[in-house]
C-alpha cells in the first residue's frame, strides 16, 4: 500500500502531503525532511527508487515538482511510477497543462483529485475520464450551492431594502 504521498518542489517546499499511515506531526516533519534530502540530491539519470527506513520511496520529477509515493518493500515499484503518472495526467487534464502555481493556489483541488484516485493507500480508479467526471460533478454541486446562497442573500437584501 501507499503510506504517503508527497509533492515537493525543487527548493524543498512542500506542495501537498497525504498520509495513509498514521504519522504524528513530529514524525511527518521528520519524514518530509529526510525524504526531500534523499530525493533532491539524486542525479537525473538514476533510478526512481530510494530505499528508506525499510520502505521504498518511488519518485518522479515533473518540471520543478517532485511527486513521491512511499510504498511497502514488496509492492511493485514500476506500477507506482504509473500511479504517479496517472495522477499527473489527471491534474494536467483538470487544470489544463498544470504548473506548480496551479497546485499552490488550488491545493485543495489537487487533494480532491487525489482522493478520487487513492483511498486507504490503494488505487481506486484507472480511468482518467471517470475521475474527471466525478470531480466536475462535485465542483458543479459547489457552484450551484454558491449561486443559491448568493441569490438568497440577494432576495434578503432586496426584501430588507
Amino acid at each position, binding site marked *: 500500500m501507499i503510506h504517503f504521498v508527497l509533492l515537493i518542489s525543487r527548493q524543498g517546499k512542500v506542495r501537498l502531503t497525504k498520509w495513509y499511515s498514521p504519522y504524528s506531526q513530529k514524525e511527518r516533519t521528520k519524514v518530509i525532511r529526510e525524504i526531500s534530502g534523499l530525493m533532491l540530491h539524486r542525479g537525473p539519470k538514476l533510478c526512481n527508487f530510494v530505499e528508506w527506513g525499510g520502505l521504498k520511496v518511488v519518485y518522479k520529477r515533473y518540471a520543478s515538482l517532485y511527486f513521491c509515493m512511499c510504498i511497502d518493500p514488496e509492492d511493485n515499484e514500476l506500477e507506482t511510477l504509473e500511479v504517479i503518472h496517472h495522477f499527473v495526467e489527471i491534474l494536467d487534464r483538470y487544470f489544463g497543462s498544470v504548473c506548480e502555481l496551479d497546485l499552490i493556489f488550488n491545493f485543495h483541488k489537487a*487533494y480532491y483529485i487525489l482522493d478520487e484516485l487513492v483511498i486507504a493507500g490503494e488505487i481506486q480508479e484507472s480511468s482518467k475520464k471517470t475521475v474527471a467526471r*466525478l470531480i466536475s460533478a462535485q465542483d458543479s454541486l459547489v457552484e450551484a450551492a454558491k449561486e443559491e446562497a448568493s441569490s438568497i442573500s440577494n432576495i434578503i437584501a432586496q426584501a430588507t431594502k
Partner: protein
Amino acid sequence: MNPFSSGTRLRDMIRAIRACKTAAEERAVVRKECAAIRASINENDQEYRHRNLAKLMFIHMLGYPTHFGQMECLKLIASAGFPEKRIGYLGLMLLLDERQEVLMLVTNSLKQDLNHTNQYIVGLALCALGNICSAEMARDLAPEVERLLQFRDPNIRKKAALCSIRIIKKVPDLAENFINPAAALLKEKHHGVLITGVQLCTDLCKVSSEALEHFRKKCTEVLVKTLKDVANSPYAPEYDVGGITDPFLHIRLLRFLRVLGQGDADASDSMNDILAQVATKTESNKNAGNAILYECVETIMSIEDNGGLRVLAINILGRFLANRDNNIRYVALNMLMKAISVDAQAVQRHRATILECVKDSDASIRKRALELVYLLINESNVKPLTKELIDYLEVSDQEFKGDLTAKICSIVEKFSPEKIWYIDQMLKVLSEAGNFVKDEVCHALIVVISNAPDLHGYTVRALYKAFQASSEQESLVRVAVWCIGEYGDMLVKNVGMLDVEDPITVTESDAVDVAEITIKRHTSDLTTKAMALIALLKLSSRFPSCSERIRDIIVQQKGSLVLELQQRSLEFNSILEKHRNIRSALVERMPVLDEATFSGRRAGSVPTTLSPSTMASVKVPNGVVKSAAAPLVDLLDLTSDDAPAPSSSSGDFLNDILGVDLSPASAHSGASQAAKNGTDVLMDILSLGTPPAQSSSSTPDIFSLSQNQKSPVASLDGLSTSSPVSARAASSQAASSIIDLLDGLGPSPPAPENNGPAYPSVVAFESSSLRVMFDFLKSPGNPQITVIKATFTNLSSNVYADFVFQAAVPKFLQLHLDPASGNTLPANSSGTVTQTLRVTNSQHGKKSLVMRIRIAYKINGKDVLEEGQINNFPREL
C-alpha cells in the same frame, strides 16, 4: 459583519505568504492570519468557516501548528451543505490522524453521511473513513460500509471496497463479514470496482485463511477469465496506458492469483496458461508493460512449480538486467533476490552482470546488487567474488564503503576456506577501509589470529607492513598494535616465515615506533591509545634493550588529559620500575582466545544486574564490558576465560588485561566501583551463566600459597598471598605496594545509620542446608536506600568452605555488596557469616524490592550451588 474576522481571501493569503522574502516575514504573516482565524472561530462565524479552514490547511502544509482548527472541521462536516462537508472532510483528513481523540466525535456525522441520499456526500464520508478511521470507528461503522458494497452506483461500491480494506486491517475479526460481498465484486465489469474488489479480496486473504480457502475454490476461474479478457481486450482509450489496457487491473489480478496459487497446486495449474500468455505477449518497451511483466514474474516464482514457466520468468529477468533503464535493472535485481531460493543456478549465470551493478553510479542499484551478491556467494566462488569486491572497495564512494565493508567482512567470516586467506582478506579490508570496520569484526579477527599459532609471525609482519602503508585506518592500527604487543618478538626475529613471504628487517626499535606513533598521533582515539600503551608494556619485556625508551614513552602519558591513560601510565611505570621481577610473568602472551565462547558471547545478553560478593572471585567466561568509556576492555578481557576475573569496573583495565584477581583487597574496591558503574560487567556475568565448577578452579588459587605455577594468574595470586595480613584486613592504611599500584582506593565500608525506622527481619531464603536472614535498616533522610544485613547460617553437619553469596536485582534497583565477614560457614548453626547489602530503589513507593540470589560453597571439596528468588521484602522498602 465582524471587521476582524472578515480577513483576506485564501488566494490573497497565499500571495502574501509567497511574497515573503525571509522566514521571519513568513512567520509574521502566518501569525497574523492565525490570530484572525482564531478570532473568527471564537466568534463562531459561520460565513467564513470554510475559508478559514482552507487557509488553515495551507498553513498546516507549511508546517505550522493548526490544532485549534480541528473542531472547525467537525462543525463543517456536521453542516448540511455539500461545499461545507467537502472542505470539512478534507480538513479532517489533513489536520487529524487516527490517534487523536477528537476523531471519535465525528463518528456520528460519518454514520449519517454514509446513509445520505446524495451519493457524493456518501463518497466523501467513505473516503474520509478509508483514510483515517481508527479501530473503534471501524467497528462502529463496518455494517454501513458493508451495505454500501452493494450500492447502485459503482463509484460508491469501489470506495466502499477500499474503505473495507482499512476496516479489516484495523479489525481483522470483521473479515468474515466481508468475504461474500467482496467475492460478488469480482464479477463486475466496471474497472474501478474490479480493481478495488480484487484488492479487497487480496487483503482479506492476508488476514483470514477462511477467506483464502473460499476465494481459491470459488473465484480462481473467474479471475483467470477476467485476466484473459483484459489481456486480450482490444484498444480501449479510457483505460489505455502505453498500448496496454489498464495495467493497474492487470497487476492487481496477477497479485491476487499469486496469493491464491501459493501452496496450492490445482489453483497454480489453472493459471499457468494465462501467466504464460502474459509473460510472452506483454510489450516490454514501455514502463507499464514492464510493470506487468515484473508482477507476472513474481507470480510465476511464487506459485507452485512449473518448470517451463520458471525458465520464461528467469529469461525475462535476464532481459531486465541487461536493460539500460536503471529502473528496470533495479527491479530485476530485486526480483533475482527472490528467484535465488527458487533457482540459484539460473541466478548464478548472471553473476558477472550483477557484480557490475555493484559498481553502478546509482546508490539504490548498488545496494540491491550488493545484497544479491551476498546471497550468491558460496564456498566455490567466494575467492574470486571477494577479490572483486575488495578491489572495488578501493575506488568506491565514501558513503558506500560502510555497507560494502560490512558485507565483505561478513562474507569473509562466513565462507573463508582457510585461516590465512581470512587473515589476508581482512588485512586488505582494514588497509582500505579500516575506519568502516566495526569493533566486533576486529575482535573476531583477533580471536582468529590468536587461534592460528603458525600464522602469528606471518600476521604480525603483514600488519607491520600494512601499518607502514596506511596508518590512518583506525581499526588496522588497533589490530596491528595488538599483534605487535603480543608477537613483537616474532616480528623482529622473522619467526615462522611462510614461503609466500618476502623477508623483512625490522628492528626492535622499529616495532616500538609503531606503538609510539600511535600513542602520539592526535587522531588516535582513546581505545587505540590505550591499546598502544599496553603494547608498549608488553614490548618492554619482549625487548629489554628498548626498555628505557619504552619507559620514557609511558612516562610521557603521565601528563595525558585523559584520566584513563594517565592512571595506566603511572601504574605501568610503577611495574617497570619497582616490579621487574614479576614483569615478564605479568605481560606474558595472552592465552589462546576461545572461538566458541567468543561467538557465543556475540549473541547478546540478558538485562539483569548482578553484584558478586567480594570475598571470592567469580569466574567470568568472557566477561564482556560493554561500556562506551573503555571499549578496549572488551577486547582485552578475553583472557578471563582462563583466569578468575575480578568484578572489575569498566575503567579498571589492568585487571582485565591480566584477567586475574589480584587480591581480596583490590576486589573490594573493584566491586564497589562496579556497583557505581551501573554494573554492566555484571550483567554479562549473569547472562552467560556461571558453571557450577567455578570455585574449584578459581578460589583455591587466591588463597593457596603455591607459587610454583607458571601462569600469570598464579604468580599474581602468589603475590597477593605474600602479604596476606594486609590483604585480608582490607584496609587501605596497611596497603602493600601491589595494592597501592593497582588500586589506590581502599574500601571504606559505609557506616550504616541506626536511627531509621525499624522493619521486621525476614527469612529470605531457607533450604534444608542453609538459612539466610535479612535485617533491614533505613536512613530517615533517604528513603530510597535500604541497608540489608544478611546473616547466613549453616543448618547441615558439614562445614561450608569458599562460601560465596551473589545477588541480582532488576534495573530499577541498585545493589552494592560489602565484603562478607568470612568465607567459611561452620556446621550445625554454630556460627554465622554476615554480609551487608545496600539497595537503592529508584522506584521507591511504587515498586518493592525483589532479588535473585545465588549461593555457592563447597562441602568437602565438592561444589554446591543454591539459587532462589526473594519476594518477601517488607512492602515499604
